[in-house]
């Protein structure tokens, strides 16, 4: 079993008390910070949106209304817990946890800080032990994130189905179709990152992004980043992709029948997922805890030790993304369902696949010492041919349909 965890020096060698305590502490900190962070996120979202809409937003509970979420939580906690008559009892109870747990687990593999300077691969000293600011670094870290995000579908799908009523079911069917569709684009743009980083471990991915030009957002040529952000928004069911709970059409969507604590779990999971996904994007594309560095110059936060500085950088970048997500919500109108599917299948997947192939061709050309421009030209030409065939096929099938062929 040692091979699993061997990579964190803390856990290497014989099992002692101190490392165990440190790991337990990490678990606790991640859990608490996660919960508090979610509460903060809810307040942050309401406040920022209020600002964008020229309103004040929550301002009664606590300074700047910061305790508003806590108050809402307490209120929810005391509400009646309803179990619909036609519900499938076991699954109805299980679903909120299936939605909630994966959102938390992703934090276990994200590097939340650490010192990545001078070839120091993210290690810090804690109580005399070298360790990482990260619960675990499995060799397949990023795949674990994908796996957990695919498990999160279960929560929504089962919640909608087990409620035994039609609006939640419709919401759940929409959610599943949407999440499964966009996971393909998500995975393909992720593949571009993996190709550039050459590692599946989150530490490995962060490790290669040691200056701005090596940040994957630049190194993979921006396109995968844009697609990843769009697909991630769709995975989160956040506006403009929130068809799952489109109030005008579906009442509350998959969680219509939920109340009290179970509803609170869905609510938490949703905001938790937003933070988690932002964390994943920061890790994958923006260097995670790496400081901003251009060429030989590195931005250094004064008065803060290198060990803690990583965490600050991470939080700053995270906040940027949280703001962007709120901004999306305040700005963009919701997509229609067919537009959503068209965007996913006919635009995002072909582009991300094509871009990945282009990057792979360039990589091969570099390894084999071929002429870069020739390789790029040939691959772009190939992709163009593929695009022409695709559009041609779409046109022909459209014409066939008009002439009465049934598809």
């Amino acid at each position, binding site marked *: 079993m040692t091979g699993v965890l061997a*990579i964190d020096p803390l856990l290497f060698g014989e099992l002692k008390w101190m490392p165990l305590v440190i790991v337990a502490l990490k678990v606790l900190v991640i859990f608490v910070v996660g919960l508090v962070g979610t509460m903060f996120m809810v307040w942050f979202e309401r406040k920022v949106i209020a600002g964008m809409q020229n309103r004040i937003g929550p301002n009664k509970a606590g300074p700047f209304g910061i305790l508003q979420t806590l108050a809402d939580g307490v209120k929810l906690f005391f509400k009646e817990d309803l179990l619909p008559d036609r519900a499938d009892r076991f699954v109805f109870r299980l679903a909120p946890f299936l939605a909630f747990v994966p959102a938390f687990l992703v934090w276990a593999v994200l590097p939340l800080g650490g010192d990545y300077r001078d070839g120091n691969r993210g290690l810090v000293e804690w109580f005399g032990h070298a360790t990482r600011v990260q619960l675990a670094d499995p060799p397949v870290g990023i795949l674990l994130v994908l796996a957990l995000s695919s498990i999160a579908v279960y929560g929504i799908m089962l919640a*909608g189905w087990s409620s035994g009523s039609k609006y939640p079911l419709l919401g759940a069917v929409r959610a599943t179709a949407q999440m499964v569709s966009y*996971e393909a684009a998500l995975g393909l743009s992720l593949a571009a990152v993996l190709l550039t980083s050459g590692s599946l*471990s989150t530490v490995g991915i962060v490790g290669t992004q040691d200056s701005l030009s090596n940040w994957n957002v630049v190194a993979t040529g921006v396109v995968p980043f844009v697609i990843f952000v769009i697909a991630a928004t769709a995975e989160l069911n956040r506006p403009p992709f929130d068809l799952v709970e489109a109030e005008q059409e579906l009442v509350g969507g998959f969680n219509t029948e939920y109340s009290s604590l179970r509803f609170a779990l869905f609510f938490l999971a949703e905001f938790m997922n937003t933070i988690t996904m932002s964390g994943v994007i920061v890790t994958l594309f923006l260097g995670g805890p790496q400081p901003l560095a251009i060429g030989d110059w590195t931005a250094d936060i004064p008065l803060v030790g290198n060990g803690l500085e990583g965490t600050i950088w991470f939080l700053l970048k995270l906040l940027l993304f949280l703001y962007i997500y709120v901004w999306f919500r305040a700005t963009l109108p919701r997509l229609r369902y067919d537009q959503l599917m068209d965007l996913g299948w006919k635009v995002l997947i072909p582009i991300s696949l094509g871009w990945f192939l282009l990057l792979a061709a360039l990589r091969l050309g570099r390894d084999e010492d071929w002429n870069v421009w020739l390789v790029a030209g040939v691959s772009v030409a190939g992709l163009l041919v593929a695009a022409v065939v695709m559009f041609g096929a779409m046109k022909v099938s459209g014409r066939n349909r008009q002439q009465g062929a049934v598809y």
Partner: protein
Amino acid sequence: MQLVVFVIASLMVLVGAVGVVLRRHPVHAALSLVLTLFGVAVHFVAQEAHFLAAVQVIVYAGAIVVLFLFVIMLLGVDSADDLRIERLPIQRPLAAVMGVGIVGLLIAAVVATRGSEPLQAGAGINVAGVGIDDAVAGHDANITQLAGNLFADYVFAFELTSVLLIVAVAGTVVLTRREKPPSEEDAP
């Protein structure tokens, strides 16, 4: 430690497998299947095959069973078909006998194998001189080893599975496309 993990994971697998067969409701059966798949993933982790474990969860639990559930939901198969009607009454006892027979056969085979010499570990899966020990020592070694298997040893079979995917796509399109209204009666 190894034993504890093994027992727990095996229990997950077996309980899930039995659940798939015995649960009357298709959704519950599908959820039992998820349990089995997770148990297998745990087994993979215990065998240091992290990549397989992750892919197991992503592909099987994350995609395939989701599609199962999706279909069950869309078709509204809310109650299991009544399985008590039997067209061929002999089938059920026959199936039971066959099942017990196969289980007995496998157990006998495993028991008979116990005494024999263990195999050389991984005789067939070595990548160009990399032993299991070396492979496990490195962080990403498991992935590298898998890449060697897929892209060097079994590269042709691996590439041809892509044709299999084309077959799946083309076949699905054909099977789900709505038929043209009948133009002419069929030839025999």
